[in-house]
């Protein structure tokens, strides 16, 4: 008989295979319910899950978005793959490799046709909810490398 006993503190919470399951969800939504459903779902997800971030952006402006991305890339252990340029009322985020697409490539998963929306729709919705403008300037569908801009002064 073999027994494995683990406590939450024994490991870091970082299950990268979840990137692939999210990809399946995006693919499934598009196939079963159409393109609009993918957009609607990601809009709803952003409004609900990112409520604390939306509030932080309203309180602190663009720096809250930068802090959020810094934290996520640190958790994903890819801090070197993101750069920021903070200008007057403009935050430019330059991602050289997306950790989700890197993991999918490593595990031979083909990205869903609308996987880009996990960047674009979330960025657009975050901007809409905070009174900012958003532009996805470039996006490489193979690597997720991208340039995103959040522009303006957030609603208070």
């Amino acid at each position, binding site marked *: *008989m*073999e*027994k*494995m*006993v*683990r*406590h*939450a*503190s*024994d*490991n*870091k*919470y*970082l*299950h*990268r*295979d*979840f*990137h*692939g*399951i*999210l990809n*399946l*969800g995006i693919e*499934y*939504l598009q196939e*079963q*319910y159409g393109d609009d*459903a993918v957009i*609607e*779902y990601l809009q*709803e*997800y952003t409004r*609900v*899950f990112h*409520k*604390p971030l939306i509030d932080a952006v309203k309180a602190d402006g663009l720096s809250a978005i930068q802090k959020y991305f810094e934290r*996520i890339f640190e*958790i*994903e252990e890819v801090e070197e793959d993101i750069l920021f340029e903070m200008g007057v009322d403009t935050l430019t985020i330059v*991602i050289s490799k*997306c*950790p*989700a697409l890197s*993991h999918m490539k490593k595990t031979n998963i083909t990205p869903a046709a609308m996987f880009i929306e*996990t*960047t674009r729709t*979330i960025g657009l919705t975050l901007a809409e909810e905070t009174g900012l403008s958003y532009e996805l300037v470039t996006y490489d569908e193979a690597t*997720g490398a991208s340039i995103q801009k959040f522009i303006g002064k957030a609603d208070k």
Partner: protein
Amino acid sequence: MISCTEFIPAYSELFKFLEAKGGKQAVVDYWATISKDGLALLKEEATRNGLRGCYNYWSHTLNEEAADFTMTLDEENGLFSIEMHECPSKGLLLNFEHLTPYSDYCDHCDILYRNVLEPLGYTYDIDLSQSDKAACKITVTAPK
């Protein structure tokens, strides 16, 4: 981007979205698809290595998910079990103050794994009676 550490709330919100579109059946249909397309590794492990394959599969996933669990493999008696003392996914959802988990969130663990293991001849049981405390127990019994 959705970080893999943000996947669980995204998953829960997807279940809610699907239920709003087509009722619980729409969610169950989605879980059936995930068990086919997203659990190939469990199927491969269980087919190749039997109950030890289950042990191998969950050793990987539960450690990466930082779960609090006791996992037992008793090949002599054809039994494999996971006592989940604190499920990282349900625990995470219960800890959010600004969102409500999908009401039947834990049901996905019943349908997903059952759909993979029962066609291979295993009996799959799950006790979700403590799921409101992020605890559950899975038992897989090998065919006689």
